[in-house]
């Protein structure tokens, strides 16, 4: 209920969307490296992969915590419906993130048990990525609610469709990880990253196509929006396809940073397409952004601080990336 004359809901929807996007892009390549871990050409390559994100992964993961806390602050209904509905999935995601996180610290300390931490890093990253993809699928599917409360069962979120979106995000993150590695490595490690990128791209493209065809059948609201209301919406998948083409061509030209940037673009346009398809529903099929909003004074109180603090957060985060810029050389870490 808002009497203040201007609507903060749009602003907050933008902020939350931005926060989740930051998380997906940044922790996406960390998790992607973990997904690729078992296939890496040897332990030295794994050292390089891990060292390329060791100083920044914790900051990347923090965007997920901001997403959770931000939803509680601005759209509490999303927080209090999604988490009970995805109870088991969230547990799997958290367990995955735990193993992924401690692997950073313990892998280099281990001598004989190093292979165990390789697996902890790989399985943890893969499970977390899959669970996050399933969350996206569940959001497309919608939730059974009664009276602002989740009323479905423990496994409603686990359907063939959400398994597909889960696998899709695993492939997508792996692609982010591979293109990040192209940028941060050299020699045989970079060659390997160049080699696997087209295959990962193919996997992403296949899933992308399957999800696009399947979604309108899952959700009549989306079908309606795609085929009768807004034709401008088709611009977004077209732009995503342009990015996909650019990933492929820049890998062929053996560009250094372009594949990663193009992959980020692909994620961005796909993500915007998803949001545009579901807008204004945040707890589909029933509740809109406005239904899910917290009190106006709470949104305002947090917004004021956020406007001041976020520029600093972005600035020093960018600075840490700058400090650790450049290639990670095999056989040497950050000393």
């Amino acid at each position, binding site marked *: 209920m808002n009497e203040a004359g201007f609507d903060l809901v749009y602003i907050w929807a933008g902020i939350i969307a931005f926060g989740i996007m930051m998380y997906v892009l940044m922790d996406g390549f960390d998790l992607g490296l973990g997904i690729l871990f078992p296939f890496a050409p040897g332990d030295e390559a794994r*050292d390089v992969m891990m060292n390329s994100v*060791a*100083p*920044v992964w*914790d*900051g990347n*993961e*923090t965007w997920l*915590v*901001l997403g*959770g*806390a*931000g*939803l*509680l*602050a601005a759209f*509490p209904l999303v*927080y*209090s419906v999604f*988490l*009970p509905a995805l*109870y*088991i999935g*969230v*547990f799997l995601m*958290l*367990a995955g*993130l*735990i*193993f992924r*996180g*401690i692997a*950073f*610290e*313990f892998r*280099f*300390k281990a001598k004989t048990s190093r292979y165990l931490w390789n697996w902890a890093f790989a399985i943890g990253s893969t499970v977390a990525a899959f669970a996050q993809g399933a969350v996206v699928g569940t959001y497309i599917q919608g939730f059974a609610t009664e009276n602002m*409360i*989740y*009323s479905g069962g*423990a496994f409603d979120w686990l359907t063939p469709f959400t398994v597909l979106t889960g696998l899709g995000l695993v492939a997508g993150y792996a692609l982010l990880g591979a293109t990040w590695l192209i940028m941060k490595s050299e020699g045989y490690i970079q060659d390997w990253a160049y080699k696997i990128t087209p295959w990962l791209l193919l996997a992403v493209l296949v899933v992308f196509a399957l999800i696009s065809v399947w979604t309108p059948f899952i959700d009549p609201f989306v079908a309606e929006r795609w085929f009768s209301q807004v034709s401008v919406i088709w611009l977004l998948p077209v732009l995503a396809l342009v990015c996909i083409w650019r990933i492929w061509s820049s890998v062929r030209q053996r560009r250094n940073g372009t594949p990663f940037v193009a992959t980020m673009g692909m994620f961005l346009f796909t993500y915007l397409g998803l949001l545009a398809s579901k807008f204004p529903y945040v707890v589909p099929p029933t509740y809109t952004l406005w239904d899910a909003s*917290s*009190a106006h*004074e*709470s949104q305002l*109180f*947090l917004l004021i601080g*956020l406007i001041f*603090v*976020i520029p600093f*957060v972005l600035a*020093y*985060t960018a600075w*840490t990336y700058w*400090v*650790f810029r450049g290639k990670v050389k095999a*056989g040497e*870490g*950050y*000393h």
Partner: protein
Amino acid sequence: MELDPILLSRIQFAFVVSFHAIFPVFTIGLASYIAVLEGLFYKTGNKDWERLSKFWLQVFAVVFGMGVVSGIVMSFQFGTNWSNFSYATANFLGPVLSYEVLTAFFLEAAFLGVLLFGRDKVPQGVHFFSAMMVAIGTFISSFWILSANSWMHTPAGVEIREGLFYVTSWSEAIFNPSFWVRFFHMGLASFLTGGFVVAGVSAWYLLCKRDVEIHKKALSMTLWLLLFIAPAQVVMGDIHGLNTLEHQPMKVAAMEGNWETSRGVPLLLFAIPDKENQTNHFEVGIPKLASLILKHDWDGEVPGLNEVPVEEQPVVGIVFWAFRIMVAVGMLMVVFAVAGLFMRKGGRYATSPWFLNGLRLMAVTPFIAVLAGWLVTETGRAPWLVYEVMTHAEGVTPSLTGGMALFTLIGYILVYSLVFAAGIYYLMRVLRVGAEPEADKKDHLQRPKRPLSGADAAWEEGVENHE
């Protein structure tokens, strides 16, 4: 047997929050210590400070890592198991927890990366600045989370409309009546934890006669710190107790094991509280002392549990005994802190075997005290989630079944057991390697130099010194 999702969720929350709390309570104190060491190194250029800082940074990295991974669980725990509570309190707790992420977590994460991996990539002044930012971040974090927690104990600055909380005054809600006492009590607890761990580890090195010079410095510094903060914590604890008496009298009644409101109440040293019969068995106490402590009068009136119906009483046994454990550990800390002052004569604090062994054993006690203290305050709030406004039953997730709650509880216990076992194992390895090179590094020398991680840094250092 019917599985109760409320009880299981409470057990789960107690377990995940306890497992989480032991890490920040240590890293808050240790972050400040590392910032001091980095500052001393920056000012004096004395390599001893750098060696100490590098050593403690490795410990910090492991403990902070475990704090991060268990902390991320906490940010979702409210929504998964307590969704009604989350939804009702979101207008206050949402912004407060978001401010914690914005003003603390990002700061800690970004600057810790530079602190751990950037020593040779940034100027020394910037490195010292990063150490300060990490330390400041840990304090900002404790500010917000303790604001959220104390608000649940002493809610203020809100009104309830249609079952939802609306904030009427942000300053009253954030700085609610028990906020400052909790904040300082916890801040001192963090310094005590950091202090006793540093003292214990330094003592162990002195006993082994390894790197005596630098660890003697560390021990001396830490003992000065403990001399002031151990007694200060006793005073702070007393102030906290009086605050609780004012706002949550039933919690204090449970702490004292006092069933009936009466005058001249004894301070019980031992008792077996029996909630069913509303009485204690085997009481041993000091007459009138509880009245004196709580009311500063031998015949002061102390509230009793019989003022509220049985279903509104906390689990008296847990509160009663956890409180006694916390106080006993606190007294033991004071004994060691004061003994440290007397042992300074002739430098015996760094040589006396009984004193050093005592300190070594004391290293685990702050964690016991912290967990016991949280157990007192949290179980003492029962049956309330938000004191006298919302119960556990009203706050739990409606769609949660006992089976689901049990599944995740077992899951977390398994995952955390693995994490904890590995963490302790690698911490021990860091301690074994120490701040100096070990004599025998053959297996390491045969391998190419590998990137820095906590335990390796010491080796690389050692290897370089050897070469």
